[in-house]
């Protein structure tokens, strides 16, 4: 079964204060599809004034929204979930067109997960309570969670609607108003969502600003009228956003990527069974979403005594990946999101080969035929080498895994932790001791054990080291969008006696 490019309007607007608003300067940029480099539509090239409009609208709405009952807020979050679910195929098609990822992923992973994240936080806010402690018989300490106010959110282009759905629901559930800037590569699904939910929230509670990082992202990140900034992206922008936040003494959360190790101990090959099959798929998951995942398992570490036999199967499985038209339901790997990513990945092939990495699979662009010849396709690639090579140390953000071998647990850990980052990791073993001890020794915020690339709303996600700080998903996320009001109440009628 195959779908085709969805229909778009000629141009779209920002969503500010409950309405679609044209950019003040009247400028737009052209957004194209990486599938065939064709035009999708024009989106606002917003400037500082547009951002201010959105931030002001959010500030005007924050008092009333912050005082709206949890019951009502949860109801509205659930309504958004229902709307996305009812239009799942439409959202999936738009997402595939804008990002280049295969339709089977957007239909079965991205969009259903979005629905679940909205529902999860609707449930969390209903189930949650503050706390009260009797400090002594006359004194009560009451902790009440209050919203921060206005939250600025800057999201990436690899999972456009899902990253929106990771960031927006917890902020809204806890009573904040949001100004969100989608990545300029992928503005479409956020816009479609605003069209579908335009009337759900009171005006000003949800605002979407399109535009370029230096023109629209920076004013949002540095606005003194924003109470918190949440960012997913890379380290330099992360540092800049923290700098701006320091001027406003604002909290921030940062998710800045990784170079995640995926470790295979020899016991995975003790039997040729369903688990081994799962482990091999687990290694090949580096190609999931064209490798454009912060937690891409881009370093495959295999114990030396099973290395040849294990890699033989991984290579065969990698070569079996179907890379074709992303609208085709059988396609497993689609197009990279933009030309600059496509070029960057190829420049890594070059330096990898120069450093002595051996190409086990792929290693070049994939020239597809017809319209797709204009798209940005890279063959799923395995490079064999050692951990000091640059391809082992830098996030390539493509369907590229670097493979190396290790002798024992100590060496596996040494290699796994020899990285600036600490976002994700995978551990595959049948050994009950390794199942616990190895993940505990890896310096990363998420270790998948005998699985990979699962992102349930219920499990906290975030980085160690240069991968950032703060967590996403899980109810603990709500405290990243709140402050604690402590009420210290005395029931004692008698004075202190000091004065």
């Amino acid at each position: 079964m195959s779908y085709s490019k969805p229909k778009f309007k000629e141009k779209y607007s920002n969503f500010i204060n409950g309405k679609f608003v044209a950019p003040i300067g009247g400028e737009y940029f052209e957004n194209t599809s990486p599938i065939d480099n064709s035009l999708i539509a024009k989106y606002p090239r917003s400037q500082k004034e547009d951002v201010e409009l959105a931030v002001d609208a959010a500030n005007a709405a924050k008092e009333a929204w912050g005082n709206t009952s949890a019951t009502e807020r949860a109801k509205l979050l659930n309504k958004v979930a229902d709307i996305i679910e009812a239009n799942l195929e439409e959202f999936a098609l738009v997402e595939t067109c804008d990002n280049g990822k295969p339709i089977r992923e957007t239909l079965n992973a991205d969009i259903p997960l979005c629905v679940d994240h909205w529902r999860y936080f609707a449930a969390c806010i209903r189930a949650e309570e503050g706390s009260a402690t009797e400090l002594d018989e006359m004194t009560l300490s009451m902790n009440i969670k209050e919203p921060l106010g206005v939250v600025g959110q800057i999201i990436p282009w690899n999972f456009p609607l899902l990253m929106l759905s990771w960031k927006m629901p917890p902020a809204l559930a806890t009573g904040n108003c949001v100004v969100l800037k989608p990545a300029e590569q992928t503005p479409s699904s956020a816009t479609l969502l605003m069209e579908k939910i335009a009337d759900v929230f009171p005006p000003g509670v949800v605002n979407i600003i399109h535009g370029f990082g230096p023109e629209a992202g920076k004013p949002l990140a540095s606005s003194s009228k924003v109470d918190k900034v949440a960012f997913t992206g890379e380290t330099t922008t992360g540092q800049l956003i923290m700098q701006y936040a320091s001027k406003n003494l604002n909290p921030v959360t940062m998710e800045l990527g990784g170079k995640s190790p995926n470790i295979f101990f020899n016991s995975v090959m003790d039997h040729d069974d369903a688990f081994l099959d799962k482990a091999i798929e687990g290694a090949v998951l580096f190609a999931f979403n064209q490798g454009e995942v912060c937690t891409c398992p881009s370093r495959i570490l295999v114990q030396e005594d099973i290395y040849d036999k294990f890699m033989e199967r991984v290579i065969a499985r990698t070569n079996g990946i179907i890379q074709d038209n992303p609208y085709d339901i059988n396609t497993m790997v689609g197009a990279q999101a933009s030309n600059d990513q496509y070029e960057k990945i190829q420049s890594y092939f070059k330096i990898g080969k120069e450093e002595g990495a051996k190409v086990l699979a792929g290693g070049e662009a994939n020239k597809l035929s017809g319209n797709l010849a204009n798209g940005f396709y890279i063959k799923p690639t395995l490079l064999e080498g050692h951990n000091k090579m640059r391809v082992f140390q830098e996030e390539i953000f493509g369907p590229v895994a670097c493979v190396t071998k290790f002798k024992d647990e100590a060496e596996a850990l040494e290699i796994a932790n020899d990285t600036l980052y600490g976002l994700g990791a995978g551990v595959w073993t049948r050994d009950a001791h390794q199942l616990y001890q190895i993940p505990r020794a890896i310096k990363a915020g998420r270790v998948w054990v005998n699985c990979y690339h699962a992102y349930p709303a219920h499990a906290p996600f975030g980085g160690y080291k240069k991968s950032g700080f703060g967590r996403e998903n899980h109810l603990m996320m709500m405290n990243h969008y709140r402050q604690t009001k402590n009420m210290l109440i005395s029931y004692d009628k008698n004075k202190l006696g000091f004065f």
Partner: protein
Amino acid sequence: MERVTITKEAAEIVKQLQLKHGDLIFHQSGGCCDGSAPMIFEKGDMYLDASDILLGKIEGVPFYMNQDQFEYWKHTHLTVDITKGRGASFSLEIPLGLRFLIHSRLLTEEEATFFKTK
């Protein structure tokens, strides 16, 4: 001898940005999405200190990289190039529909010796 150079096409864009923004710096980013790419900012926009290694100047623009990252890069020579694209960072060339990118090669033996003794 230089650790970092720039292509003619990229240099043209740097000049264009200098006219608009004045003094600039390059900073090499790491991490996900638009990371692993050089970014260009107005001088003074980014807080730099001793942990940022100055690799050299291209078109009069200093090129910095964090020292932790430099440890993994120091055996390579970098060429800043420009390509069509659309990054999502705050880098100043993005509104032009262009992105700076890095081509790398290993340092020659002569270069490696030079930088080691320097």
